[in-house]
């Protein structure tokens, strides 16, 4: 038979397991801080991932466009009338001739009507009435030297064939794009800093209120000859565990969110969206986020405790 008094005898019994010197794990507000750190880690992870994706994108674009230019033989004459498609074809062929014999040109490729239509389709729509719109001649060219001087020389040569022929170096477009992605990256970095400050403030506030709640116990440890380090370790350990829990939660949710975004953008095949596949190094950096968050929380707790203890005699 079970002893009915067994439970009663347990009342008032401390757990045999050694307790912290301060009952920090039982104080209220811990759950809230864990949640906050979870959220902050999640946001930091998204901001970081976005910044990684942006830098990957600009890298790919700018390296892909370097030394590449596009020669346009417009269908329109200077007086506003339109060349016949055959004229455009022959002008483009002559331009190709000139380009492929020039020493600065590595390779040149005359785009077919099909390719040109593919290029403009995203902007003009699927059912483009063929033949109605005069298509220009386009030649994509790779140079071994894309300085302005070379481009100008080539352009002058081509203008002998077609007065309005011009060379598009993508430079203006690219510099706009780089400025835009740069601004986005700055915003992401700023967001990360704000997240960091918020976390530090919240942890410091939490530690302060916990120290106020346990003031009598802290003072007792101090009077028994506990060094500031000893007392601060109590709070550091608590902050470390708390931050780690929160950060792991945050990174878990963030991982799921990133995978979902990656899946959606892959599914939609949106080529204009940045690529969300991250490299191994970047994934490792994201995974190290909880360690960083825990470190920040621990150091913050330490600084806060030492500052409060300095007030004691």
């Amino acid at each position, binding site marked *: 038979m079970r002893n009915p008094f067994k439970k009663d005898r347990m*009342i*008032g*019994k*401390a757990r*045999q397991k*050694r*307790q912290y*010197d301060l*009952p920090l794990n*039982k104080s209220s507000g811990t759950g809230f801080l864990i949640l906050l750190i979870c959220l902050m880690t999640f946001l930091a992870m998204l901001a970081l991932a976005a910044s990684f994706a942006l830098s990957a994108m600009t890298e790919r674009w700018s390296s892909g466009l370097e030394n590449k230019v596009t020669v346009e033989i417009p269908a329109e004459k200077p007086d506003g009338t339109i060349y016949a498609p055959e004229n455009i074809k022959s002008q483009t062929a002559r331009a190709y001739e000139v380009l492929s014999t020039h020493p600065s040109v590595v390779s040149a490729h005359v785009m077919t009507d099909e390719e040109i239509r593919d290029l403009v389709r995203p902007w003009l729509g699927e059912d483009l009435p063929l033949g109605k719109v005069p298509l220009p001649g386009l030649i994509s060219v790779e140079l071994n030297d894309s300085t302005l001087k070379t481009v100008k020389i080539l352009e002058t040569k081509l203008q002998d064939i077609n007065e309005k022929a011009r060379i598009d170096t993508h430079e203006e477009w690219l510099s706009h794009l780089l400025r835009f992605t740069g601004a986005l990256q700055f915003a992401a970095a700023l967001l990360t800093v704000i997240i960091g400050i918020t976390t530090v403030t919240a942890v410091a506030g939490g530690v302060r209120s916990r120290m106020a709640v346990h003031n*009598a*116990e802290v*003072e*007792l*440890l*101090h*009077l*028994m*000859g*506990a*060094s*500031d380090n*000893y007392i601060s370790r109590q709070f550091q350990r608590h902050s470390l565990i708390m931050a780690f829990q929160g950060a792991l939660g945050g990174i878990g949710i963030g991982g799921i969110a990133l995978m979902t975004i990656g899946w959606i953008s892959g599914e939609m095949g949106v080529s204009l969206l940045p690529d969300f596949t991250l490299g191994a190094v970047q994934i490792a950096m994201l995974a190290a986020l909880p360690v960083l968050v825990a470190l920040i929380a621990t150091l913050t707790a330490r600084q806060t405790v030492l500052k409060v203890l*300095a007030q*004691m*005699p």
Partner: protein
Amino acid sequence: MIRFEHVGLRYGIGPEVLSDINFALEPGSFHFLTGPSGAGKTSLLSLMYLGRHPTRGLITMFGQNTGGLTRKQLVPLRQRIGVVFQDFRLLGHMSAFDNVALPLRIQGKSEKEIGNNVHELLEWVGLGDHMHVLPSTMSGGQQQRVAIARAVITRPRLLLADEPTGNLDDEIGYRLMNLFEQLNRMGTTILIATHDHALIEKFGHTKLILDGGGLTVEQSTHWLAKKIEGVF
């Protein structure tokens, strides 16, 4: 070893609770501290356990002028002092065992050493079967014994006890006084604040009497009697 010179203490902008206190405790001595309630016994002890700074005067502890020490230098001094607080100040979330073990853990002793010493001492003060009980479920006298055990577990050089026998019946009270006497014989300097005149008479150590902010020293008649006995 411990010397107070022209020490004064006031709380905030209040009147001086202690004014111009002068005395010295020799190493290995045993003193009682008495005086009416509110005379400043607890305040005087708090100066000795380095819980606050005096508003004026010079305090020398273990040969060091405490006014000239940094916070860090005060830590090892505090570790040489055991204190029984008037209100015990036990940690409520910890068992009696862990409360008594705390000063040893602070001093970085091994768990094995802690286990042996704490068990032995708790048995000795009659709390052998209350080791893993929380203070909140103990009687006042039991809590007081935990507080005393915690103060002596490190074998301090100086023991300060504030009304340590207030809640105890005579038998256990004398038993604990004997513990203090034993510690004293092993070299610990002892100062006990108490109202209990019977106790003072029985043990007859030198009295420090606080009244009206001042302190007077009164050699015990007991001590004189012993001296006289020796002479004749």
